[in-house]
């Protein structure tokens, strides 16, 4: 990690009709740092990440990546910028019309124009890096378990050795042991590549393992941010309630009577 700011987000706002999802999100992410954004469902974690990736257009605010304002980029410039990113989706989002190796090599072939044979070799290397045998390369995604799909998704995210990797709920839907395996893999690949990482999760075990720094989002704002070792002494009642999973506290679930 160094002091260079890789991603700077200021005053990010996004609404869907009358529902305000992001209400002025601010944070900086240093190069090589692993930031985990925690928060309950519907608090704006995924929307924040989608705005950074350009998958959604923010209503207001600024997002700078390596000092370049990205909210005003043209479509072509944005696709070039996305070469810096890798992403592991919550449900892995593997292309079910392609075999596993083509999923992993997709960004290399389509995004970077690499020859198929060379991309296939790299894909098999990356599959090995996430603990999958070369035989898996020929299978279709539908033939894989949930844990294996996540690993293939991780291999795809790191295939082009991106500068920034985004992990969207990396352990959701996995058993605790497989979740820990995925966490270890994330820590390993982030350290090996020296990449900058943003993760969004509500899994505290995962957070403690993969984060250098944690930010909590609530009602569309970052309400607390600090290093992961200080999360148990945050002094913030919202964070306290969230990390201990208490029903009672300042965070109230919006439950309507039947």
């Amino acid at each position, binding site marked *: 990690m160094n002091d260079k700011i890789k991603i700077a987000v200021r005053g990010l706002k996004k609404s869907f009709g009358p529902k305000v999802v992001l209400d002025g999100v601010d944070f900086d992410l240093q190069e090589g740092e692993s930031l985990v954004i925690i928060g309950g469902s519907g608090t704006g974690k995924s929307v924040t990440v*989608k705005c950074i*990736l*350009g*998958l959604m257009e923010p209503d207001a605010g600024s997002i700078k990546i390596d000092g370049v304002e990205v909210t005003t980029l043209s*479509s072509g410039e944005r*696709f*070039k910028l*996305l*070469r810096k*990113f*890798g*992403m592991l*989706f*919550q*449900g892995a*989002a*593997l*292309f*079910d*019309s392609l075999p596993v190796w083509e999923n992993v090599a*997709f*960004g290399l072939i*389509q*995004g*970077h124009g690499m020859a198929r044979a060379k991309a296939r070799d790299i894909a098999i290397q990356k599959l090995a890096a996430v603990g999958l045998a070369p035989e898996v390369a020929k299978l279709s995604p539908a033939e894989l378990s949930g844990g294996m799909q996540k690993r293939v998704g991780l291999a*795809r995210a790191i295939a082009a050795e991106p500068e920034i990797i*985004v992990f969207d709920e990396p352990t959701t839907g996995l058993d605790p042991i497989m979740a820990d395996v995925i966490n270890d893999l994330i820590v390993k690949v982030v350290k090996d590549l020296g990449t900058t990482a943003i993760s969004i999760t509500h899994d505290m075990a995962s957070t403690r393992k993969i984060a250098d720094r944690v930010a909590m989002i609530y009602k569309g704002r970052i309400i607390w941010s600090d290093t992961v070792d200080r999360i148990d002494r945050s002094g913030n009642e919202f964070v306290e309630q969230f990390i201990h999973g208490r029903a009672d506290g300042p965070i109230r679930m919006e439950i309507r009577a039947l």
Partner: protein
Amino acid sequence: MLDFLASVGRIFIGFLDGTGRFALFTVEGVSHCFRPPFYPRLIGRQLIDMGFYSLPVVGLTALFTGMVLALQAHTGFSFAAETGVAIIVVLSVTRELGPVIAGLMVAGRIGAAIAAEIGTMRVTDQIDALSTLSTNPYKYLVVPRLIAGTIALPCLVFVADVIGIFGGFLVGTYSLDYNPSSFLGVMMDNVATDDVASGLVKSAVFGFIVALMGCYHGYHSKGGAQGVGAATTYAVVSGSIMILLTDYLMTALFFSS
């Protein structure tokens, strides 16, 4: 009263919003057809899916359409006899029934498949994954289908024309006892290049419409399996209606003089 006006206003704004979104999607999709990168491998795969694998259903439909047409023409226009039946079959099939029947069958088979495939990709984040892998979803998903639809349907319709005429010929000669050589001769004498060409031009437009509707509704589907199901229905229904609407407009244009 105000509530009523507000409802009407909301519906109107919703209509404008949908029309604008569809127009932008069409312009974006067509403009990417002329800008690199191109994906010839994907276009080839779509051509096989849309064209080759649609041959049985389109061929069978065309065959029975030609046969029914000959029977109906014989019973309905008994005064016309052999010459009239031959002319009705050949002109109806080449100008109208070949393109429209093939278009509707492909709308059901291919429009639904496109909407279901792209819709599933949308609700499972695969389209977002394409973007994060620096691949423009329009170029990768929409353009190959638009190009393949526009090329495949005229080829299918040409085959359908031949099979449909053959169906009419079969019924005319074996069931209605017309003289084969004179029946065929009348057909050939009365079909012009323009008749076939107008049908092929229509079918190219129908192929584009089927692919466009499938892509549009799939691309904008949301809400999981139910949303994908709805997208599939919309793709087939709107594709079929658009085919019939543009058929009328093009027929009026081609044959108004």
